[in-house]
Structures are given as structure tokens and as C-alpha cells.
């Protein structure tokens, strides 16, 4: 397959890859923003003392983590219409990604919050801050730093998972490769180009994480034995 590798055909399909790349990019950004919102809400529910709030969040998080995204996507795309809710696929796709990643992000944020030392929380309490003020002024700003690397990991997973949306006719990056494979029967060209595009996205995300970590003043942990 490789000896006849045709760069010419790739160049011919480049506009398509460009569109796919752009679509994946904005799909991921919107979904990730949604996932953050979902994650924050879930995490806030999960941290409450009231079982009434805690339990639904816990069940949701477990159910999402234990089942494949494909099944969730199916439920949203083919299941909701049976209940009389027909949504455009783009919306369903973003919704599925956000709901799925949100469950993971909730756990990441929770771990970040729990990593804040008790002393910090008590300092906030002792100076008369309310729960909301402690969260906003003391806990979350510190938790954010701890959560950047796992959030980056989750963002990468989300970008790659967005490929599944091609299943419900959302045109994104993977689809461009598949078109090249099915129109011209050039799978190597199609999939390797797709992989290269994802790698670009990956390194973009990674440098964004490094940048934001620096911006937030997190010092990297040195390795040592």
C-alpha cells in the first residue's frame, strides 16, 4: 500500500481535509466548553452533603463511564426521536460529546478540589468567607492548576472521540480520510493524513496546556529518582 503512496491525491483532497480539520476543531471546542459546564455542575452536585443531589450525579457519572460513547450517541440520535424530540445531528453530536466528557471532567475537578489542603479551606472559613466565596476565591483557583494535565488528557480524548460523529453524518476530520478511502480506494493516504491532522491538534492542545499552566503560575514538577 505504501509503495504507491500518492501525495498528489492527498493534495487534491487537501481542501476537504481543511474543512474536516476546521469542523473537528470547532466541534471539539464547543463540546469541550459544554463538557466543562456539565462537569462543573455534576461535580458541584457530587460534593453536596445532600444525598438527593449527590446520588443522581454519582449514578450519571458511573453510567457514562461504564458504557461506550457509541451506545450513548445512539441513544441520543435514535432514541430521543422515539420520545418525540428530533434534534439536528450537529447538536446531538455536540450534546453527546459534552455529556460524555462531562462525566469524566466532573471526576477530574473533584479530584482537584479534594487535593486542596484542609488548611486552605480553614483559612477561608476563619476569615469569614461563605461557601461560595471560598470556592471562588480560594479553592477553585488552586484546583484549576492541579487539573490542567488531566483536563488536557480529556480534551485529547474528546477530540479523538469526535470522530464518532461521522457515524451520524457530521462531516469532520475522520470523514475526509474515509472519503479518500472510499472514492479512490486509497486508505493509507486517507488515514495517515487524518492521523497527521490529529497530531497537529494534539500538539496544539499540549502547548495550550503548557501555556495556560505557565499563565496560572504552575511550576512543572521535575523528575528524579
Amino acid at each position, binding site marked *: 500500500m505504501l509503495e504507491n503512496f500518492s501525495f498528489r491525491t492527498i493534495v487534491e483532497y487537501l481542501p476537504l481535509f481543511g474543512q474536516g480539520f476546521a469542523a473537528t476543531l470547532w466541534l471539539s471546542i464547543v463540546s469541550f466548553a459544554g463538557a466543562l459546564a456539565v462537569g462543573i455542575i455534576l461535580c458541584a452536585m457530587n460534593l453536596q452533603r445532600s444525598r438527593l443531589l449527590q446520588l443522581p450525579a454519582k449514578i450519571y457519572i458511573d453510567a457514562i463511564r461504564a458504557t461506550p460513547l457509541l451506545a450513548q450517541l445512539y441513544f441520543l440520535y435514535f432514541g430521543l426521536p422515539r420520545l418525540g424530540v428530533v434534534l439536528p445531528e450537529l447538536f446531538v453530536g455536540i450534546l453527546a460529546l459534552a455529556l460524555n466528557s462531562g462525566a469524566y471532567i466532573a471526576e477530574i475537578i473533584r479530584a482537584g478540589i479534594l487535593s486542596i489542603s484542609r488548611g486552605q479551606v480553614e483559612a477561608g472559613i476563619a476569615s469569614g468567607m461563605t461557601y461560595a466565596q471560598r470556592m471562588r476565591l480560594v479553592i477553585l483557583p488552586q484546583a484549576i492548576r492541579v487539573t490542567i494535565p488531566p483536563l488536557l488528557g480529556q480534551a485529547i480524548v474528546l477530540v479523538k472521540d469526535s470522530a464518532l460523529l461521522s457515524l*451520524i*453524518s457530521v462531516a469532520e476530520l475522520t470523514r475526509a480520510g474515509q472519503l479518500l478511502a472510499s472514492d479512490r480506494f486509497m486508505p493509507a493516504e486517507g488515514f495517515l493524513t487524518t492521523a497527521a491532522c490529529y497530531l497537529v491538534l494534539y500538539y496544539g492542545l499540549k502547548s495550550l496546556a503548557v501555556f495556560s499552566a505557565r499563565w496560572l503560575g504552575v511550576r512543572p514538577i521535575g523528575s528524579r529518582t
Partner: protein
Amino acid sequence: GTLDDITKRGELRVAVQTQGPPFSMVDAAGKRTGSSVELAELMAKEMGVKITFQDYDWDGLIPALLSGKADLLVADMTPTLARAMKVAFTKPFMYTGSAVFAKTDSKFGTMDACKAKGTKIAVLLGATGEKVAKETFPDAEIKSYKGGGPLLLDAVNNGQADCGVNDVSAVKGQQAAYPAGSFTIMPEVLSKEPLAFATRYDEQDLLVWMNLFLDQVALDGRLQKNLDYWVNSEDWKKDHQ
């Protein structure tokens, strides 16, 4: 040559695309069957070797053939000229066409209704139907799905698309899973397309043999019998549902 290899191996390796009835499917008992599958089995029988099916999902199908993991590819595949730059197609074993279908009780019962601006038309990604639909319905919104023909029926049934365009025999075969009369298949055939098997250009001997095979089964009526059972009637349903 490849035929020598197959004889020596005692095995014909066939990559199949499980697109759904009537060409290739897995029946309730978990057995692989369908029109194309039976033709391939016939081929192996004539060669005097046993057959192994390799069931790739769509992404793996072409690579399997190109990398030599499989000797030939059996699917309801249209031999386009662009594709033929990469793989060698046999003679067509049948002709079919793309048809438009819609839900029976919807307002998209005719071709003209479907041509309206903004109609959502479901097609299979990369399939001929996709291209045909774009030409026939320039004003429509084309939605390409991945994952097999039954998905199109599901999408139309659920209202995610107004109508679908796919291979007419596939649509006929696949609607069997729904209550009778759920879908209207419009009488117009949008295009006439051959269906063929594929192999590699470095397997000329196999290609020659397969073409001969298709001639033979066409002459002695076995091909017609196969198509009558699977494609032109619904006889298969009583044996395989």
C-alpha cells in the same frame, strides 16, 4: 500465480462487507449468508478449496485487499473508474440502480416533493448513492451516514432525514425488518449501476478465473437462481429471519 497459492493453501480468503441484506448479512443463527456470500462459496467450491470469510468493518475492507490479507473482496460494490485505478473489478454480476425511498405516511411521497429546497436526504458515505443524490437533488441537504444501509432506513423512519437514496435491491432487502408498508420506494431508478467483485491487479489469473466463473454461472442459470432467491423476491426471509 495467485490461483496456485490458493490451491496450495487449500483456502480462499474472502473479505466481506457486511452491509446488510440481501447481499451480505449475519443471520439469526450467527451464520454469514447473503447473495454475494453464496456466490463466493460457490466460487470456492468450483476451485475445490475451502473458504474463509474475513469480516472487516468498513475501514478495514480495502486495506485488507490491498495488503494481501484477502484474495478478493465480495460486496455489493460499484466499480467506478476512480476505484478501478486501485483495484481490479470483475465483470458485473448484476445491475441495480439507486432508488429513493421515504416513509409511507410522509409528504415526501414523490420525486418532486423530494426535490424541494432543504429536503434532508440520507445516503451512505462514499457509496454511489451519495454521488447520485447530489446530482439529482441539487437543492437538498445531503446527509452521509456510515454504518450500513439499515441505518438509512432507521434515520428516515425516525425523521432525521426525509428520504433516503440507496441501492434499490439493498433497500428492498432491508425494509423487510420493518412492518410491511412502512416505506414507499419510488418507481424511478436514478441510475443504472453494475455491481462487481474486486481483486488486485497483481492477481490477473484470479481475475480471469472469476470472470470465467461469472460467465459460467450466468449461462447455467445458477446466478439467476441466486438472484431470484435473494434479490428479486423475498423468499430468503422465510429461511433466514
